[in-house]
């Protein structure tokens, strides 16, 4: 029986492991955290259908349990990778026939965009914090009161050369729209403003959701990036932006500011490049063999990619990637 190591227990890794296992391949799934599920574990509902994130994860877990072929090792990181052997941070090394790297991405650290006051002002939160609040069903200001006006800022840590993040993180626009709708459902009387540079509704049902947010939920969309946040005398946050569609500066007080943080490539990717000979893109995401026919393969035969390790992806794309990588692995193993 062939043995494949899948590094990263997010949705892409889980999907890949499950698919491989069903092909009678022995899989070891390595997860750095204490449990599988990756970033999706922190999400509340997934756009554009408002499917609970748990549903996707439990579906994947169920699929993984269909066979006995998967061994999940949590709490361990891979340090060096070759197609034949993966060395763990514990010093242990595991032999294998192929490796799938599905270590995903890192959320952009909003502290770096200091002008938005994350970590400085109480009611500046990130989209990930908001998901957590949704999960606890407790979206409130720090002092416990109900927000009357909420601003959602797009492209925090995306498309911003000032923080060396030139790429578009792809999912923030639609997340902003989704969260705006959820906030309006929770607080219909609140005003929700989305500050955007471009609205990129690339997926099926996304544009419809955007439109619904505008027409049905009366979410305001202002094209312009917030320049700075400062406290107001009434303890609200004053934000400044340009309403570029009218060509006028705009300011207002808000009770809560949600920063849609982007996807940053893992710092670890640099060591994959340095220590394992894998290729990186300028953005820091890993470089697949090519962008079309071999987009789940690395430049090293026997090492494969799945999910957001190669570029920002949404959950559905990461799942597709996991399945595709599994197929590619099987093909490759058959050829050996």
């Amino acid at each position: 029986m062939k043995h494949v190591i899948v590094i990263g227990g997010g949705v892409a890794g889980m999907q890949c492991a499950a698919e491989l296992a069903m092909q009678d391949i022995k899989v070891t799934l390595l997860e750095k955290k204490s449990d599988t599920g990756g970033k999706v574990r922190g999400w509340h509902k997934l756009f554009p259908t408002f499917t609970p994130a748990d549903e996707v994860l439990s579906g994947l877990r169920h699929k993984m349990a269909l066979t006995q072929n998967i061994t999940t090792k949590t709490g361990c990181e891979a340090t060096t990778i070759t197609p034949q052997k993966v060395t763990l941070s514990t010093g242990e090394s595991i032999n294998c026939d192929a490796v799938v790297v599905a270590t995903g991405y890192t959320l952009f650290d909003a502290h770096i965009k200091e002008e938005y006051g994350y970590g400085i002002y109480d009611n500046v939160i990130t989209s990930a914090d908001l998901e957590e609040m949704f999960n606890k069903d407790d979206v409130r200001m720090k002092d416990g009161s109900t927000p009357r006006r909420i601003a959602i800022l797009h492209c925090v840590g995306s498309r911003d050369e000032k923080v060396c993040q030139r790429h578009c993180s792809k999912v923030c626009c639609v997340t902003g729209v989704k969260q705006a709708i959820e906030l309006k459902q929770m607080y219909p009387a609140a005003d929700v403003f989305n500050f955007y540079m471009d609205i990129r509704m690339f997926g099926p049902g996304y544009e419809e959701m955007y439109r619904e947010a505008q027409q049905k939920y009366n979410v305001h969309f202002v094209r312009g990036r917030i320049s700075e946040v400062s406290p107001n005398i009434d303890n609200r946050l004053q934000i400044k932006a340009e309403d570029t569609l009218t060509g006028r500066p705009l300011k207002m007080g808000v009770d809560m500011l949600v920063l849609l943080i982007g996807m940053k490539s893992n710092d670890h990717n640099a060591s994959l490049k340095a220590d394992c000979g894998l290729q990186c893109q300028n953005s820091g995401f890993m470089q697949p063999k090519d962008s079309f026919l071999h987009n789940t393969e690395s430049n090293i035969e026997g090492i494969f990619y799945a999910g957001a390790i190669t570029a920002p992806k949404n959950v559905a794309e990461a799942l597709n990637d996991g399945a595709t990588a599994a197929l590619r692995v099987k093909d490759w193993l058959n050829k050996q």
Partner: protein
Amino acid sequence: MKRSSWTDYQKDIADDHYYYARSCIRQNFFPGSEKVFLNILGKDLGRDIFDDPLHTSCTGIGYHSDVVPLETIMAVVARQFSLMSDAGYENFTSSCITSFGIYTELLATWEEFPETEERTRENLYKATGREFKKPKNLAHTSDVIFHHREAIAQRAKRKLVNVYTGEPLKVVEHIGCHYAKIFPKSGIGGSEFPYVLAGMVESWGGELVDYPERRHCCGFGFRNYLVQANRGYSISNSHKKLESMAPYKPDFIVCNCPGCSMFLDKWQYTIAEMDGTTYGQNGQGIPVLTYEEMAGLVLGYDPWELGMQMHQVDVEPLLDKMGVEYDPSAKYLGRNGKYLGRPEPTAVNSYSSRDTRYFIKQ
């Protein structure tokens, strides 16, 4: 607000042996401030500071008004550095924010584009026969005070506290665009949450006001002020800042930059005259202090010795609040008791008219 971010922006500030470069605006409009700075460093703190009569303007005003070309200003700055080396100093400290910005900018330019440094050396040599060494440490004089703020606090005669209520005084600080906006790393606390003045205020017992337009320009804007037709832009900016801070009822404004001190002070008079709006307690204006004056008051200097009679907005209400004893009749007496003349009373400058008699010595 969790004000921890300033710790991300720290810089080395020399502890002693400073070469001092004066500021054009400060020495003309707030001469007491520069004098008291030298006194505080030299006498109070016992540090070595050299006030070199040979140094010149950095020509920053001309540079920012597109009158002085880059190469010229590089040569002028190189000459200052050369004078510093001649005097045997390595730590350069400048009184002016714009100068500080210029020095930082040029040092960075020389770093990034070494050929410009070479050309500057050549130019300086051809023009003056001088050579120069770059300073080991560059700091603004406020950085120096910031560095010694705890030492000053130990020697403090007064605190930034309202003696009637016991409450800390509410202070608005303004660091000036050229201090940290060009290179956030060059200023303490960076440009978003600057700490250089805030640190002094907190060490000396005051309370900082964080208001929405805190980072906004004072309105000087060089050619926006220098060309009369553009002064509307200039005053509108000051107006915006004052409108934004007014609801917080600050007791005074402390400025880092001599230009800012001047404009935030004098425009208050102009705004009062133009549309009748006055700020501060009883509409008497918000006093604007330089940080040297603030330090001087804390250390117990006489306000008139600090040159505070030169302000547009009367400082007496602030002095009263701080419990500073002063002689009202000595306000407009200059050195050797010579009468300086007094301004016409206005909304923001009315104490002189309430005031009694003056000793007029010809």
